[in-house]
């Protein structure tokens, strides 16, 4: 447990101090947000209609950005070989690294989500729900992203390849998350979409570390 916490702390710290980190993703997220009214035109009616969907799309894309470096540096400088000698199994290491990615980047993006949605024209009452949804969604983005990042370790096509592998798995949370906001805004019941989003994130939490661990093991051998 102590080792796990130390690793978590180290990874979060590194993601902040390495430059880039959340700043890169946040900048990308906000730039996408700014481009939406520029491409669709500034009519409030149109923007309010597409705000939930495009916010979730931007959130998914912004979550992709730092995945390429999630495992790569530690893989190249041999940290994984040292970690393997310790008590933590690779699955736990994978989980911790993905959680660090979530806390360091995903949660920051999630915190910005209510603001993005309101700027794009959603009512302020939706802020709380959109924050909860974005927190859940970004957790699944980080965990699934870990699978993609570990699978493409050692290939020379990193970034684009990860996007290709991971984005199809981002589809369900985007559907549920945007659908949830759409349902809320039209006054329809929200429990189903919220439940599905939560279930997807929990499934990802249970299964993704296993797949990521297996992929890391194959990369290290």
């Amino acid at each position: 447990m102590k080792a796990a916490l130390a690793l978590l702390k180290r990874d979060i710290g590194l993601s902040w101090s390495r430059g880039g980190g959340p700043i890169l993703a946040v900048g990308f997220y906000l730039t996408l947000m700014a481009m939406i009214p520029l491409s669709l035109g500034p009519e409030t009616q149109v923007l309010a209609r597409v705000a939930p969907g495009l916010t979730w799309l931007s959130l998914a894309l912004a979550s992709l950005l730092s995945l390429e470096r999630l495992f790569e540096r530690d893989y190249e400088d041999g940290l994984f070989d040292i970690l393997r000698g310790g008590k933590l199994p690779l699955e736990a290491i994978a989980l911790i690294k993905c959680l660090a990615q979530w806390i360091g980047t995903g949660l920051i993006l999630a915190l910005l989500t209510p603001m993005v949605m309101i700027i794009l024209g959603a009512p302020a009452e939706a802020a709380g729900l959109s924050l909860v949804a974005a927190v859940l969604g970004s957790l699944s983005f980080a965990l699934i992203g870990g699978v993609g990042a570990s699978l493409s370790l050692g290939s020379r096509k990193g970034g684009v390849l990860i996007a290709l592998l991971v984005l199809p798995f981002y589809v369900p949370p985007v559907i549920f998350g945007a659908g949830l906001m759409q349902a809320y805004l039209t006054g329809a019941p929200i429990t189903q979409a919220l439940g599905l989003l939560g279930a997807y994130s929990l499934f990802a939490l249970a299964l993704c570390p296993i797949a990521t661990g297996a992929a890391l093991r194959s990369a290290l051998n």
Partner: protein
Amino acid sequence: MISWLANPERFSRIFTPIRPYIGVAAALMFVWGLYLCFASPEDYQQGDTVRIMYMHVPAAWMAMAVYLIMGIASFFGLIWRHSLADVAAKAAAPIGAAFTALSLLTGSLWGRPMWGTWWEWDGRMTSVLVLFLFYIGYMALHAAIEDETRAAKSTAILAMIGLVNLPIIKFSVDWWNTLHQGASVIRADGPSIAPDMLWPLLVMALAFKLLFVWLWLVRIDTELMARRYRALRARLSFAEEGN
């Protein structure tokens, strides 16, 4: 049985002689199936367009079946480390992608006159499109990793994760009650389509299956030969270095 067959030498010895017969059988079934397609009556609502279904439905079945085969082969490759299973999974991917593309394409061609739209974002179509993306991702990942054993392992993990999409495709028409119709052939209470139309469909389905098996065997054999060639070349260059 599977472990016994997993020896590439033995596999080639058994299947290379029967392979041409499978190819010929596929061709004959296609001739028969296509004849039945055009001999079958027009649909009272769809007219001639119904004949697209005899391509569309078998292609869609194969799109899913090939992915399932890929997933099972990946499982065997990952657990028992049969290199033949890796080869089989890798060889199936482009064929499955082609079947998926064919089913999307024929569906689109049929949808234009029947539904009045080339494409609709309903559950079935979207999930099959995602299946197509999985095939593309699988092939891209395989191509991106140079080391053959590592590539096989990574793609096997990816293929097995992708299996979650299959039940989504299958039940999408029940979960989201949208444009695409529900099952009409494989049902608990028997097929709900007329026998005149069921026959060409089943013959075509068999033709598609035989075509897949034939192409698959050819691709497996090609891959095995390519590997043997690479191994021989490596040995040769090694021997030259030694001199």
